[in-house]
């Protein structure tokens, strides 16, 4: 399978930090795969995502996205990436429609096309009736679904999801996962997914990498990881590899 993202000896050391946040990690994310990046708090997931999105420059190593790097093709790289942050990154006093129109326009999508995309996505995720309500009046699950739509409007080739289902009800979680599976299957969208819901990751991800304290501990196909470690689930693999130690800073 063709690699869509190549991570090569990636290193990020913050100023005055005792250890690197990301310490010499290398892996490939295949085109059209759902890649789960798992790890305890402080493992380096957010730092990695920030570098993948072009927010930080690596201290060393590189990330090649579809043959290009942020260093040389920042605009092109950003245009093919869609991000769904862990926070509800929306304006609470604007309506859902206003939020999505603004985000779509920032991606340079033409008005008529944008309206259609918003309407279609709202319909699929069951939000069309509340489209003109302010975000502030939405439930947690509804906000999460809008957050997902905001990352999808420009039809990205690589979708980065940072705990997209945290704190939502079962129905909203199912709707989000179903939508993501459909995007992956029907449109071949490459997905990078982080979560602490390991059962969800096991069900959703074709490939998984586990990082801890900035280092890549293991990676591979989901079933392969489970069988290689003689475990019954990814959660067992995860605990076996990362241990029970708390990661309190």
């Amino acid at each position: 399978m063709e690699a869509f993202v190549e991570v090569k000896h990636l290193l990020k050391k913050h100023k005055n930090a005792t250890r690197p946040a990301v310490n010499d990690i290398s892996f490939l994310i295949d085109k059209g795969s759902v890649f789960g990046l798992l790890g305890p708090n402080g493992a380096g997931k957010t730092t990695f995502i920030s570098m993948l999105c072009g927010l930080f420059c690596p201290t060393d190593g590189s990330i090649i996205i579809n043959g290009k790097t942020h260093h040389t093709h920042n605009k092109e790289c950003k245009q093919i990436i869609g991000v769904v942050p862990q926070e509800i990154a929306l304006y609470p006093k604007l309506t859902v429609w206003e939020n999505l129109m603004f985000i779509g326009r920032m991606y340079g999508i033409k008005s008529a096309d944008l309206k259609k995309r918003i309407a279609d996505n709202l319909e699929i995720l069951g939000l069309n009736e509340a489209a003109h309500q302010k975000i502030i009046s939405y439930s947690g699950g509804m906000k999460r679904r809008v957050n997902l739509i905001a990352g999808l409007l420009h039809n990205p080739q690589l979708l980065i999801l940072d705990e997209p289902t945290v704190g939502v009800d079962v129905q909203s979680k199912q709707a989000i996962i179903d939508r993501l599976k459909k995007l992956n299957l029907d449109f071949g969208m490459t997905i990078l997914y982080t979560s602490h819901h390991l059962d969800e990751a096991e069900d959703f991800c074709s490939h998984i990498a586990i990082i801890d304290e900035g280092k890549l501990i293991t990676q591979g196909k989901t079933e392969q990881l489970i069988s290689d470690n003689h475990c019954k689930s990814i959660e067992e693999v995860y605990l076996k590899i990362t241990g029970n130690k708390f990661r309190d800073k």
Partner: protein
Amino acid sequence: MKLFYSIIKEYKVLTRDRAGLAITFLMPTVLILIITLIQDTTFRSVSEASVPLLIIDRDNDSVGKYLEKSLTSSKFFAITKKSMTNEQAKNEVAHGSYLIGIVIPEKTSENLRTKSTQRISKLLNSFTNDSVNVIETIDTNKLELLLYFDPITKLSFKTTIGNSISSIISQIELQSMALSLKEKMQETFPYATPQKLETTALVSTKEEYASYNNSTIIPNSVQHNVPAWTLFAMFFICIPLAGNIIKEREDGSAFRLLTMPGSYLVVILGKMLTYITVSLIQFGLMLCVGLYVLPLLGLPQLNVGNNILLLFLVAFSAGLAATGFGLLVGTVSTSHDQASLFGAVFVIILAAIGGIWVPTFVMPEVMKQISIISPLNWGLDAFYGIFLRNFGFKEIYPNLIRLWLFFLATLTASYYYQKFVRMR
């Protein structure tokens, strides 16, 4: 187009934030109304009748009447006449009811006339070496008016008032002497019909403010407070602007915007243009308050000078500086509380040293020197130039350049600080 949509978004976010709107528009209006009313008396004291003065006139003759008439015509005093003892008059002044008390003793006018007559007689007799007929019956050294000053009176003010009263008394003496001379000459030339001696001043002084382009506008509380508090409110915009930036950072919107191609700079630019527009609306609104609302409260109407375009150029420049400052506060602060506290305290300090609370022309010399570091002072100075001195662009451009440089400095600092934090 991205910039346009960014401005539309900011406009919607801003107009739906009622607390932010209240800070932006209501606060300067209230401040202008309250502070202008409070300071009006202080500003009037240098130009209009407001110094409370007590006269105890036991003379009830020409000296008392002339003194009262002269003091009234100076339009400098609010005169009250009462009958009371010296001790009571002293107490009234000591308790602050009056700034000055004047006691005119009994028979002051009569004694003055007698002494004047004696002096004239002495002078005329000296021409004939006849000094026998002049008998000094009154010790004129005891002829004195008593002045009481409130202890809070500044020395310079006390001296000025004392000199004014002395000048009036000198005129009374001169008139008395002239009258005595006329009477004595009448005795020598009983059939003559002399004209009345003119005692009006032969040399007068003409005073006017050394204003530019023949402007004769006198500074008052309105001319000071309207631009001053408008500038204060413009710079206070840093709090909602910084809050807006921090909120975007905290809720992940900034993260999302940073991941979009070239969008974050557009969004920041959109914010700045929106807030500059808000500051111009603030300015227009405050001008309307000065023109139409303050006169309803008995205050003078704001005189906006002759160059409205230039006024708005100053307002635009001040708005630039204020939004640049807001951007810096929003970039440097790590929380909304920190930005509110830091922004508010810093703006208040800049306002205090910039002459917003107390005009720089009444500040001590050292504070006058310090005031020139405040961007609010640059804006206020430019407004003063247009309002009071009819200045044009070539006279106020140094202050405009300072405001633009301040904007560029804050913008650069924000950019590099953000870059520094991201690179850490």
